[in-house]
């Protein structure tokens, strides 16, 4: 957890990408790091391209965007196509196995988010789930900080299922 990180969470509106960016950013702050979070989204509440970019650093962050991403989460084909050719071989791409095809087969991990959500019995907790999957593959923040940040950002009523989804992602 001493490295600098550049993470792009990309997909479509309604998948909680920006909230996930916020949860990840606050976890990084709990770990004592500097953070920059930017987002872009369309005018629709659901659907349409959406992304969050998170930069985590031990020191001051100059460039607030991801100049050279270390991790790309691509939940849609559009998200994948936007970045897959531009990232370096060192960048880990976690993509949705069901929605993304034509992969370039480099440093990639496919994950069946739909199947996992059906197992969890809740289709809305995809962001907590992918945060778990991300942390399983890369030690970006501590699991303790992530749990704390999840609890802070998610209303008490739906905390349990979200923590369960996070844990599920972490264990897959």
């Amino acid at each position, binding site marked *: 957890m001493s490295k600098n990180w550049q993470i792009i969470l990309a997909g479509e509106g309604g998948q909680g990408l920006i909230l996930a960016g916020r949860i990840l*950013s606050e976890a990084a*702050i709990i770990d004592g790091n500097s953070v920059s*979070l*930017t987002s872009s989204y369309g005018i629709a509440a659901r659907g349409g391209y959406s992304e969050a970019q998170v930069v985590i650093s031990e020191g001051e962050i100059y460039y*607030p965007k991801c100049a050279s991403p270390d991790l790309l989460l691509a939940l849609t084909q559009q998200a994948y196509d936007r970045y897959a050719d531009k990232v370096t071989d060192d960048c880990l791409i976690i993509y949705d196995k069901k929605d993304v095809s034509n992969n370039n087969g480099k440093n990639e991990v496919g994950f069946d988010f739909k199947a996992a959500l059906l197992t969890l019995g809740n289709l809305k907790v995809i962001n907590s789930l992918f945060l778990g999957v991300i942390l399983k593959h890369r030690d970006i923040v501590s699991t303790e900080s992530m749990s704390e940040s999840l609890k802070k950002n998610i209303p008490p009523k739906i905390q349990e299922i979200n923590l369960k989804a996070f844990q599920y992602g972490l264990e897959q």
Partner: protein
Amino acid sequence: MSRPEGIQLMEGNHACAWGAIDAGARFYAGYPITPSSEIAEVCARELPAYGGTYIQMEDEIGSMAAIVGASLSGKKSFTATSGPGFSLMQENLGVGIYQEVPCVVVNIQRVGPATGLATQPAQADVMQARWGTHGDHPIIVLCPATVQEMYDFTIRAFNLAERFRTPVILLSDQVVGQTYENISLPDPASLKLVTRKKPGVPPEEYLPYQPDENLVPPMAAYGDRHILHASSTCHCETGYSNFKYGTNRQLLTRLKDKIYNYLDEIIEVEHFGPEDADVTLVSFGSASRVCKYLVGEAEKEGIRVNLLRLITMWPFPDQEVQKALANTGACVVAEMNQGQVINEVNRVNTTNTPVHLASGIDGELIRPEIIMTSIREAVK
């Protein structure tokens, strides 16, 4: 919600609103517009708890009029907007300058003209901030580049407004306004706040536009025993209209001198990177962050680059830029417009240092490669 304590993940616009509240602002009038709306949101939610007032106006013409009026009534007041709204505010901004009304106008710049590429970032209102309202006038404009500076510079903007009895513009942009970063708000009691000077004479002797030794007239508030009369036509020391030959010259000269005689209190720049450089970048706001990043990147290519960041945009830091140009091989001005600051840089370029433009007009934070290309050209 209460005031955020400890280290927080905070949006630039939220930090601006908290800076205003901590600076003592108790009146906000505005018309929400992306990418500035979060400033209005925080004020609507928080100001009443501080005994303050939030009004959503019918438009930005009314918003600017309302904050001028509120300030004349004794409140620290402000508004926030973006391009289209900033255009509508220009007329009454001039009223604020001419009547010497302390207030703060926040412009979170987006792509224009007109509706433009709503609501993507740009830095193309530099000249509008300087000359948008008609007539001869001075203006103070500050350019923040981080979430922390959205807080700090908002406080500074209020302090300068109160010190010089004039509107101050916080010229930010979508990137700075809507980026989230870690910030820790200070104890409000630790802040150094400036409040407008009150009249030191009995009410019957008070002339609302009679300047003090620093050229700024002490300011009563509407409703005080000291009668304040403010006019948007040419006025003498009584505040009443006066069209005698010489009155306007006297007034305009004082309005300029009260600011330009005290530049050391206003001008602020940041030097970043090595002292000696092949190329000096001149930039401000979000674009200057890309420049800071490139100081290190250019070093990898064997090019020594430093940055002169303009924190005060207006009055323009003539001397600081002139000195930087004299001490470098070449200059690249990086700005998210087609070339506004570069003309000011050239104006003070007495050493004929080659000056190149790196222009970002794509509705996004200027890409590093655009500036890097200009750096490489500059050392050819």
